[in-house]
């Protein structure tokens, strides 16, 4: 599932996303460069991801279902095709690489635990979540 989000769309939402994430993470906007990994780089935890999604929903007036990133990455693969015993299958890993195209290839491990997917998330990941949610909202209207 290659993404067709272009960099202009990402940069258009980036300032507000960074401001929102800075509030959630208790860091400065300057620390939130697009490619910073949120867990390794800024000590983000799972509750922070919930908080970020929650705040982005309010800031952009969009709806982002919990687990949306993994669900979208899985696309039309069945759960069994995507993961097995908590690890991504080869097909699942490829889908994830395609979906999180902003993440450098060397950060994807093989084998990779599903629970470790959030380790890949960057600021740009959430910019793209917002772009997708705004598109979905526009279509729904």
């Amino acid at each position, binding site marked *: 599932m290659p993404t067709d989000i272009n960099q202009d769309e990402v940069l258009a939402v980036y300032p507000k996303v960074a401001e929102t994430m800075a*509030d*959630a993470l*208790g860091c400065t906007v300057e620390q939130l460069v697009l490619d910073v990994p949120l867990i390794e780089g800024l000590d983000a*935890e799972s*509750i*922070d991801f*919930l*908080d970020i999604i*929650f705040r982005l929903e*309010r800031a952009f007036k969009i709806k982002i*279902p*919990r*687990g949306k990133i993994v669900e979208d990455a899985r696309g039309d693969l069945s759960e069994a095709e995507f993961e097995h015993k908590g690890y991504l299958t080869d097909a699942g890993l490829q889908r994830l690489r395609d979906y999180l195209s902003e993440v450098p290839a060397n950060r994807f491990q093989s084998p990779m635990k599903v629970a470790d997917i959030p380790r890949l998330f960057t600021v740009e990941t959430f910019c793209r979540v917002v772009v997708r949610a705004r598109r979905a909202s526009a279509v729904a209207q």
Partner: protein
Amino acid sequence: MEHFAAFSFVDRITELTPGTSVRGVFAVPAALPDFSAGLVAEAIGQLAAWAAMAQAEFRKRPVAALAADIRIIGEAAPGCRLDLGAEIDGGDRDTVLYGGWAQVGDARVMEMRQCLGPMLPMDDFDDPAAVRRHFETLRAAGARPGRFGGVAEPEIDIFERSAGQRLRATLRVPESAPFFADHFPRRPVYPATLLLDAETRLAAVLAQQVLHGPAKVHRVTGVKLRSFVVPGQVLEIGADTLSHASGSVRLGVTATAEGKRVATARVEMVAS
């Protein structure tokens, strides 16, 4: 200590529209010295939790995690009857999103907006059958009022002061307390609302320095609980002045354990 007594703040659920809204009541025992804002927030949260647990067929229960905005409008004096309401604003099978309020008579004492709690396996915290039975009691005749016997305020030892700017203190969570039997029987957790009460007490000390007089909490925003606090845990709690204007001050409050952030929030205090 009896389950559903030591730290339970809903006496009866008077209305329930599954997945949408819930109403309830709690009689604040007259013998208590006071009933803190944290306990009012706990009552609202517990009412929302009952609705969420019923919706989840008592297989999951929510735990406190995020609260975007808590407005403290008035006080719940001992002896009063708290009318409680919560609207379930959304969420999914893994989270509950709600807002709620408490009032005494016609007067609102608290409003909570955009609160979110992860739904975790009930089995880890409590006996699902016992929780379901108590829910049925609350939906019928209600539980016996006056069960809550109060909570001892934990001691806060201030060890660092920067006048008007910053305070740091040690908060020793008790090894044992009656409320741990209720919160929760299978996994004792220090209630986030008691932690918030302790943090606002510290914030009030700092606010008093800034405002040159007594201060009371007016609003708490951006509450985030990062991990459970367990019996016997020693926390460092802190309050920092963020900004102040005539008659009010905004403070950041934190709780850390071994250098790791446990809870954060912003508190607005006003001269009282």
